[in-house]
């Protein structure tokens, strides 16, 4: 990279440097003006249009929602320790797993990486001052909070018990819980995700630094471009589907009413047309993060850059064609099942390409096992298992037995928790020095990563066995012979909970007490490592010009010159 930007205090004092002259007392470390200390007060945060501050606003609200979803998960796991379900009533249990699903899917997983790391890094990574529409970016956060408040209202005043999938006719005619309020919450939050996607697309097209061609874009930006494509073209379909459910519940506009002739399978088609691409909204940003982590931590250009970039787009587009594999036994015709099963196998290929490319990047690399790398390796391992179990579910004959059982629960938790959340935490640690200007405690980071990895596997691997034994999903009571596996899973869940609390603690601690971080603590390549940490409000004091390929670490002999 060509330009030097912004003087910042050297993090590691040069041992041999001459001591400063004594007369003028050495100036206290004058802190450069950055986006955090440029202004203070509630108004400066709530009315900010700086993409970095909005990213932190999202980070705070995302963490709160993750905590709420986590509480529900803990209650579910506690409940399932005993076959008779002694802790809560059946109604309450149904509300627990529904709210766990709704909060985790719509309020944590979908916005997590795009809204926090994406908002923070995309403008910096492409050399722009800010996103294309800063005010729309703030509006998107307010819309997210409005949607969240609707759902919290519904949750506090009685919850909803339809499952996060809102299947009709239960959600329209038989559930007497807050379906409309929760639906409205999701409808509104959907627009926050649409606006974020819109912002990313226009920024990536129009605001790249001179010289930054598409083939030089960081893979993080590629992944978010593909994610934004899905956000834009998928979210409206679920918005209109939930609107139709609300219209039917509220105004008797019987679109899905079997008594009139409405078809519940049509609802499932419309619902899964969005909800399958939605799982790619959750995993693609994590893949972008992992591509950055793997190259940053092994200080080597990613193996097969073009293949990884194109496979992100391939996943986004193919992801729209396969939704029927959620409905093989739902009464969908056999022929549609055959078509969707075949297409589902095609969408598995780009994911496989990515995993192989990441692993190949590590060949002959210089790997430092810091926390982000632990998360990256955890991600690759767990995402591989998650993806391969997807092949089980896509096989028609096998799907008949394993769908709607704990096998599915284990599969998507391996992808969501093992993949998306590992990626999110890895990215959070990797860019934490850039976001907060502070270094997190490395030791604690590694301990937390290992605890999360162990806890996760103990929680969800037994569920594969449970699933094949036939334990159905969303069961409050279950036959006695499944109890031992459930107890193992609950034990793992407690370890996982501890693992998740640790980063919350030491990252917050590091905000105030962590050692100051220099512009490039990992000595990685990328525009974000060229500016100070935390970066000034305009990111770049001088417009950077990109001359060479991304992640160009150069060979050993060049190092001498630098």
């Amino acid at each position: 990279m060509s330009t030097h930007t912004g003087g910042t205090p050297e993090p590691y004092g040069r041992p041999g440097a001459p001591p400063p002259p004594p007369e003028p007392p050495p100036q206290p470390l004058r802190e450069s003006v950055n986006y955090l200390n440029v202004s203070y007060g509630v108004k400066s945060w709530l009315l900010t249009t700086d993409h970095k501050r909005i990213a932190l606003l999202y980070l705070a609200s995302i963490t709160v929602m993750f905590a709420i979803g986590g509480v529900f998960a803990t209650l579910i796991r506690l409940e399932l320790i005993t076959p008779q379900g002694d802790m809560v009533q059946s109604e309450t249990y149904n509300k627990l797993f529904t709210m766990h699903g709704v909060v985790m899917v719509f309020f944590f997983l979908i916005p997590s990486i795009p809204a926090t790391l994406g908002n923070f890094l995309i403008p910096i990574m492409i050399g722009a001052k800010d996103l294309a529409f800063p005010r729309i970016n703030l509006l998107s956060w307010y819309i997210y909070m409005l949607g969240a408040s609707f759902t919290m209202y519904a949750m506090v005043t009685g919850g909803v018990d339809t499952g996060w999938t809102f299947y009709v006719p239960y959600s329209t005619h038989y559930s007497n819980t807050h379906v409309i309020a929760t639906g409205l919450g999701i409808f509104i939050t959907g627009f926050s995700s649409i606006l974020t996607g819109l912002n990313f697309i226009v920024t990536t097209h129009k605001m790249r630094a001179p010289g930054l061609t598409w083939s030089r874009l960081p893979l993080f930006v590629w992944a978010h471009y593909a994610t934004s494509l899905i956000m834009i073209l998928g979210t409206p379909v679920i918005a209109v589907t939930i609107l139709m459910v609300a219209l039917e519940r509220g105004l008797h506009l019987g679109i899905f009413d079997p008594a009139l002739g409405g078809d519940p399978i049509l609802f499932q088609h419309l619902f899964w047309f969005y909800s399958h691409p939605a799982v790619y909204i959750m995993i693609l940003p994590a893949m972008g993060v992992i591509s950055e982590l793997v190259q940053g931590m092994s200080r080597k250009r990613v193996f097969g850059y073009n293949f990884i970039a194109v496979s992100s787009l391939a996943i986004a587009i193919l992801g729209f064609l396969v939704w029927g594999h959620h409905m093989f036994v739902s009464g969908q015709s056999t022929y549609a099942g055959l078509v969707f099963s075949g297409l589902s196998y095609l969408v598995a290929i780009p994911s496989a390409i990515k995993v192989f490319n990441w692993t190949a990047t590590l060949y002959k690399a210089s790997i430092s096992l810091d926390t982000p790398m632990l998360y990256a390796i955890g991600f690759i391992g767990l995402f591989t298992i998650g993806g391969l179990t997807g092949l089980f579910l896509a096989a028609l004959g096998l799907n008949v037995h394993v769908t709607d059982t704990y096998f599915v629960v284990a599969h998507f938790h391996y992808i969501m928790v093992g993949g998306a959340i590992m990626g999110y935490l890895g990215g959070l640690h990797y860019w934490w020095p850039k976001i907060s200007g502070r270094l997190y405690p490395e030791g604690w980071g590694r301990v937390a990563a290992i605890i999360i990895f162990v806890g996760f596997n103990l929680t969800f691997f037994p569920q594969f066995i449970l699933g094949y034994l036939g334990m159905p999903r969303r069961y409050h009571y279950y036959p006695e012979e499944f109890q031992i596996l459930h107890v193992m899973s609950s034990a793992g869940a407690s370890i996982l909970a501890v693992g998740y609390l640790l980063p919350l603690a030491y990252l917050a601690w590091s905000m105030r007490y962590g050692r100051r971080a220099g512009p490039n603590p990992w000595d990685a390549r990328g525009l974000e490592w060229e500016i100070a940490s935390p970066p000034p409000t305009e990111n770049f004091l001088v417009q950077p010009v990109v001359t060479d390929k991304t992640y160009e670490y150069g060979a050993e002999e060049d190092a001498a010159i630098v």
Partner: protein
Amino acid sequence: MPEHAQAGHAGAAPAHDHVVPVSTYVMVFLALMVGTGLTVAASYVDLGIWNTPVAMLIAVTKACLVVLFFMHLKYSPKLLWVWVGAAIFFLAQLIVGVGADYLARVFLNLGNPGT
């Protein structure tokens, strides 16, 4: 402050902005009105199963007229075409995908190969 004088390149009217003559607008308007009349008339003619496709064809041509001329897509960079095309492709995918299931299950009654 004499804005125009200092604006330099950045301020000049964006080069690509092609000002469409009013006559084009009026021509497109008339075409749309004719289209509306046509589609209403066509609905009274019994074309068997071809009624709906004809109505849709007319509607699509009217929509194209509006998009190309009224919304200036004809003079806009190719990127916008890509996004409009993507939206239409995914909408078509939705309708075809869902329609295929109903086609096989209800109309051709191929629900289960054995029954």
